[in-house]
Every structure is written in C-alpha cells, then in structure tokens.
C-alpha cells in the first residue's frame, strides 16, 4: 500500500489498492531466464518446486512399478509409429510384398499392412517386436508391482483408492493387450477373436445378441478390426494414461511407503529428493528399461505373424494360445469339464465356457480390489500406515496371497498344457487331471505352508534378537567350561526385527446388552471375530524390551556345550526359556 498522505480523504480512497506487481516474479529472479518466463505465465514454479523436493525411499522392489510405467511409455511411443502404417481394415487384397511364402495369397488389409511393417518398412519389424515385448513386460512388471504392494501391506489406509485404481489398470491392461493381439488378423489373432466370440455367445440369454452387436453381424464380419483398432489405440490408452496419472499423483500426494528401519517412522520418508537424485536415477532407469526391451526385441522374435498366415475361419494351428496375461482365462477353459454344458427348457447353458470366460476375470478383480477393505474390517485398524510390513510379519495375509498366486499360476500353466505335453513327453489328459486336482488342493496347501514358513521366520527373528548371531567361536573358560560366543545384533539391525506390532484376535462382546436385548450386530460381530481369529490366533509376538533385558541377564552360559556337574540343571532351564 502506498499512502503518501495518510488520513487525507483522497488517500483513504486508495486504502485498498494493490501495489503494482514487479514485472518479474520473485521466483523468476532466483531461477532466472526461461523458467522465470514460464512461471510468470503459468505460476508453475510452486508446484514444480514441491514435486522436485519430494523425497522417495530406495528399494529395488519400489522400481517394479517404474518398469511397468516405462514399458507402457515404450508401448505408447512404438504404437504411435505402428499406426502410421497399420491399416485397420478387413478388406481383402492379394499379397504382393517381399515375403515369398505368402506371395499371391488373399488376405485382409490389416494382415498385409502388418506384413509390410515387418518386411517392407525400414525398422518396422524391430518396432513391432519392441511394441509386443514392451506390452508383455508392462503386464509382467505391473503384476509383480501389485504383488509387492500386496505382500508388504502398502494397500492399507490411506492407499486403498490407489490399490483399487491399480486393480482397474491391471484389468484394462490385459484387455488392451488382447485387443492389440487381435489386430494383425493373422491365424493366431483370428483364432483368439473366434474364441472371444464363443465367450460372448456363452452368456446366458443375451449371448448371441451380444456377439452380433460386437461383430456387427455374424463372425468374423468386417467391423471388428476397425472397432478393435479404435479401442486399442484410442479408448483404452486414454483411460489407461488417465488412471495411471491419477495413480502416480496419488503416490506423490500420499508420499511413498518405506520399509521399516532406523529413523524411518510412520510420519517421515527417508530417502532422496527428486531433484537431482531421483530425476537422474529414474531417468536413467527409463533408458535401461527401454534398452533392455530393445535388446530383447533385437535378439528374440515375438509373434511371427508371417508364420501363422492370414486368418481364415476354417483352420486353427496347434499351439494356439493367448499372450501370457490372458493365459489364466484360457487355462480355466481348458480345466472346466464339459458336463457343465447342459440344456433346460430348450436353452443351452454353456457354463463350461461362461465360468472361465465371463465370470473369472470380473470375480477375480473384484476380490482383489475389495481385499484392503476386508482386511481393515477384520483388523478394525483405522490408522494410517506408511511403514511397510515385512511379509513374514503378516503370516495370514502372506499365506492368502500365495494361495491366490498358486490358484492363478495353475490356471496360467493349464493354458500351456499342450506345450508341456509335447515338450515333457506327458499325456495332455494326465496334465489336465493333475491341474484339476491341484486347483482345489494347491491353494490350501500353499496357504498353510506359507503361513508356517512366515511364523518360523518370525521365531527365527525373535531368536536372533534374544541371542544374537552364532559366531561359531567356542570359548573355554578357566574352569573348563565351554560355550559358544553369540554376537549381539547391533541396534539398527535389531530395530528392523522388533519394530512391528501384532494384532490380537478380536474378543467377541456379549451378544445381549445389560437389559438382555440381543445386539443387532451379533451375527456380523461373530463373523468378524471368527475371521479375526483366523488371521491372528497364530502369531509370534515381537521381542519386547523387557524380554531382551531378561535374555541379556541370562548371559551366554546358557549355551554351554558341556556344563560342569551341578550347574547343568539350571542352565538347561535357562536355555529352554528362550
């Protein structure tokens, strides 16, 4: 405010005037030139500065998501290149390109343009292979990223929304992949579309209408390729990139989780700021990922569409499989028995197809998306968690995760039953029967074994904390006593082993209140208590400071190999106490 004559009526009129802004903002003065010019026009300096100062913790498993992100960017870049030449049309043409074994064969324009990209456009084949390998790596990486998030409990409050977004991203990614796989109109992709048509037709009542709607008439028709193209290059990428942006912004806003360790608390993030460290690391990692994918694409062929020939609804090739990420659905189809197809009142119910093809994916992803909410309900834990769990410290969750993984893995491997049969010299029937049994038996066994291993590891952690590391040094005392020297853990290592907490199973409250009125929530409470006991009745408590103190007072004599007469009894007791 500039008031040259305070108090004068004229001056009072100017009381609320705003001082003219200097031509250059204060931020610009510090960053100068171009950045200042930009900031004057966008005001971006504040936001960018905030982002640049964000701190990220270091751990290799935090980079799996980065691999997924970079693979997706590689897909976007190479995909753009491919759109310059790909012709999304089912129009029939006669091939006259440079691949001799197909010369003179009638095929769709989509297939011809893919052959041209592979053989007649400079750099086309390597870009196609990079695109396809990057797509496979994208889904491999996002799946392992998802596993990391699950097993470390990173989905807990406040990150449930981001977990759900991640589930949606994962599901859209496999649909996007399938759309791309179906585009070149070679024998393999056409067979995949034929299968997709069958899936739609297996939907009770609406099946055939649905199929006619999608294919714009009977299979294969001319509409599906342009439609899939729009879905593959426009619709799904837009949703993927949009959701992915939200996903990444949420990570920045909620801050990255970190593994427990010295100095790392629920209220801080220990690591390095984006600028300059993470910008360099992550930027460099992008080029590593791109480079690795390019190297693989240069050395290993993928989806040799020229070998499959053009699509024609009559032939099918042995070894027709979807890309790996759709393998679990294909495997489910291979395992479902034929008697699930039956007729009632003149309608055919193709449940042998519908369960694997229509129900599996939505049910699986719904369960995945709901898990954080289920766990929160069981634990009743309303706190925020920014420190990750070590998987062993959540044995039931880890066990459930491994069981789900085994279930998924069996379905995925079942999709390769024919390849296993010829490569391992086995009967495809035996393999299928084995998988049909394992799909029921495997997950419970996996759950039990994993949970036991987790509990054992926790006991080992306890043992380490209480007794320290066995050095292997046998010490003989002056009076002839032997003991092994145990080296106590340093406080930093110890902290990682004792910092976590264990939940107690919820206690069931009285079913009726003081006036003998039954609690309206009695039923849900009972269920919740049962689940809570399923989760937490087997547990190994972390060592408390008191226990540690007690263990240190016992001293090392407890480890004596041969105790002198008279003292043996007491020492045995001491060692048993641990």
């Amino acid at each position, binding site marked *: 405010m500039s008031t040259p004559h305070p108090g004068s009526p004229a001056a009072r009129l100017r009381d609320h005037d705003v001082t003219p802004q200097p031509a250059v903002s204060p931020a610009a003065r510090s960053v100068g030139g171009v950045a200042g010019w930009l900031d004057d026009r966008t005001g971006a300096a504040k936001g960018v500065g905030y982002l640049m100062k964000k701190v990220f913790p*270091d751990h290799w*498993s935090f980079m799996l998501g980065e691999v997924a992100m970079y693979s997706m960017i590689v897909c976007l870049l190479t995909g753009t290149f491919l759109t310059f030449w790909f012709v999304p049309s089912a129009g029939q043409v006669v091939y006259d390109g440079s691949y001799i074994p197909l010369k003179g064969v009638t095929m769709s324009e989509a297939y011809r343009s893919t052959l041209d990209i592979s053989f007649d456009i400079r750099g086309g084949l390597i870009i196609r292979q990079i695109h396809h390998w990057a797509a496979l790596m994208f889904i491999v990486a996002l799946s392992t990223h998802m596993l990391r998030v699950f097993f470390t409990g990173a989905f807990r409050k406040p990150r449930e929304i981001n977990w759900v977004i991640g589930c949606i991203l994962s599901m859209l990614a496999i649909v996007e992949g399938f759309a791309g796989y179906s585009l070149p109109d070679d*024998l393999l992709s056409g067979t995949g579309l034929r299968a997709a048509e069958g899936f739609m037709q297996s939907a009770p009542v609406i099946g055939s209408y649905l199929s006619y709607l999608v294919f714009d008439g009977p299979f294969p028709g001319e509409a599906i390729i342009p439609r899939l193209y729009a879905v593959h290059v426009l619709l799904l990428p837009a949703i993927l990139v949009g959701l992915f942006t939200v996903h990444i912004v949420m990570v920045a806003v909620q801050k990255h989780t970190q593994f427990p360790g010295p100095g790392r608390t629920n209220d801080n993030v220990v690591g390095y700021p984006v600028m300059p460290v993470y910008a360099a690391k992550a930027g460099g990692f992008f080029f590593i990922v791109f480079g690795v994918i390019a190297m693989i694409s240069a050395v290993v062929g993928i989806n040799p569409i020229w070998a499959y020939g053009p699509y024609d609804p009559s032939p099918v*090739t*042995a070894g027709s499989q979807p890309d790996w990420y759709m393998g679990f659905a294909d495997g489910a189809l291979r395992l479902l028995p034929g008697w699930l197809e039956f007729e009632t009142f003149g309608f055919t119910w193709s449940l042998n197809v519908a369960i694997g093809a229509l129900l599996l994916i939505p049910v699986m992803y719904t369960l995945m998306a709901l898990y954080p909410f289920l766990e929160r309900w069981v634990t009743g834990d309303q706190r925020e968690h920014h420190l990750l769990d070590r998987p062993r410290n959540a044995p039931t969750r880890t066990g459930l995760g491994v069981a789900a993984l085994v279930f998924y893995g069996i379905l995925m491997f079942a999709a390769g039953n024919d390849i296993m049969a010829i490569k391992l010299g086995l009967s495809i029937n035996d393999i299928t029967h084995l998988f049909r049994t394992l799909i029921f038996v495997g997950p419970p066994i996996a759950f039990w074994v994993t949970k036991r291993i987790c509990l054992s590891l926790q006991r080992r952690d306890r043992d380490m904390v209480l007794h320290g590391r066995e050095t292997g040094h046998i010490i003989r005392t002056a009076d002839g006593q032997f003991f092994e020297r145990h080296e106590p853990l340093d406080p930093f290592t110890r902290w990682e082993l004792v910092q976590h907490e264990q939940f107690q199973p919820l206690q069931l409250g009285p079913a009726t209140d003081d006036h003998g009125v039954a609690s309206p929530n009695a039923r849900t409470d009972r269920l919740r208590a049962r689940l809570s006991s399923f989760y937490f009745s087997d547990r190994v408590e972390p060592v408390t400071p008191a226990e540690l103190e007690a263990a240190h007072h016992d001293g090392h004599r407890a480890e004596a190999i041969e105790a002198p007469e008279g003292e043996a009894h007491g020492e045995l007791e001491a060692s048993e106490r641990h």
Partner: protein
Amino acid sequence: MNALAARRRHPAAIALLLLVGLLVTGAAYAALAPKQASAATATADQVEHGKKLFLANCASCHGIGAVGTDEGPALPGVGAASVDFQMGTGRMPMTAPGVQVGTKKVKFSQDEIAAVAAYIASLAPGPAIPDGEFTDGSKGDPAKGGELFRVNCAMCHNAVGSGGALTRGKYAPSLRHVDGKYIYEAMVTGPQSMPVFNDTNITPDSKRDIVAYLHAIDKSENPGGLTLGSLGPVPEGLFAWVFGLGIMVGFAVWLGSKSA
C-alpha cells in the same frame, strides 16, 4: 504293299485292325497314364530278399506272411510307401510298445528297406513309393502349399510344422527338416494317428506344394531373431517372465543398492 492292299478286303482284316487299334491304345495308355508303381519294377530276387529280412526283423509282431498278431497289424495292402516311411524314418522296427512310435536311428540300408517294401507290396496292392517328381519341394508353390497346410495340417502339426499334442500322450511330430518323400508318404499312408490324404483329397501336385511350403520354412532365416521353438505365445510369456523380468530386477537391485 500290293499284297497287303490286295488282302484289305479279307474278312479277318477288320478284326485284325481292331486288335492293332486296341494294342496301340493300350500301349499308349500304359506309357502315358500317371503311374506311381515303382514297386512294380521289383524283381523276384528283391522280393525274396525282402521276405527274408521281414521274417528276421518284423515277423515277431506282424506274423509270418505279415498276417498280423496281437502285437502288430496285418500288412497286406499297406503298400510300399508305408514300409518306406516307417522303416526309412526309423519308426520301425520299434523298440518298445507305447502310445506312439517315435523315430530312432534308421537300422537298415535303403536297399534293404526297398526289398522289404517290395515284399509287402507283392502281398497286396497299396500306395507305392512316390515318384521323385512329386516329392521335390523346389518344384512346388510354397504359398499355395502354405494355405493347404494351414487348412489340412496345422491344427495338429502347428502352422510352421513345430508339432503339437494329441490325446493321451500321442503327438503330431515336428515336420521340420523332413525329407519330401517321407512327408508325401505320410500323407498317402496315414501313419499312426494321422488321417490318409489320398490323391482325391489332395492331388500329387498339391502334396508337392505342401512339401515346398515346409522346405521353404526350413530354409527361411527367421527374420524376427530367435524363434523360441516356434511354439507360439507360451514360450514368449515364459521368456518375458524369466529373462525379461530377471534382467529388469537385476538392474533395479543394482540401482537400488547405489545410494546417491
């Protein structure tokens, strides 16, 4: 000539002329008609030699006189092509019974195989060993052969002949680097689980196109790089998980362990 002209009205002339006409037609047909009967040229010696070989090596399962036993089928009518295929690819004599007879090292010389083939062919007519003209892939059209292959063969043998699984441990073997003669013979004789593709189904020319297609694949230089066995997306997925993810995690561990 005059004598011949004088007798042209002889009552026997017309019959004689008919006879000559028939002989010429018959001889021309025999000379010009398509034939595959190379086994027909078998000599009696060859048949006799083949019979001895058969008795020594095959009769324990196929029976004396190839009439068949519980262990092996009767062979009259299978033709020389079948013998040539089974023995020439090392499938027969088989070492052990199983769901499917695999290939082994060939135990007999081509002469011995031809002798056994001649013997079996002498028992009853059957498909003969094909003429070299129809088994030479270089004379066929690989593009047409590819279409025929995809329609007729790929569902078991895979689009590029890498092989595939059948029920209960049986399999369609790989067709890579197989002699054109054996591909042709397999089509006309239908060994084991394979159906017969006779000359009405697929003409000899088309069979040659199929051979041409398979040989063209054998010679192609894999423009994409390593083929991972040409078995489709399963090995590709396995590669992505094992090597792709392995390398990425390796780099991530390296970068993660480097504190700035």
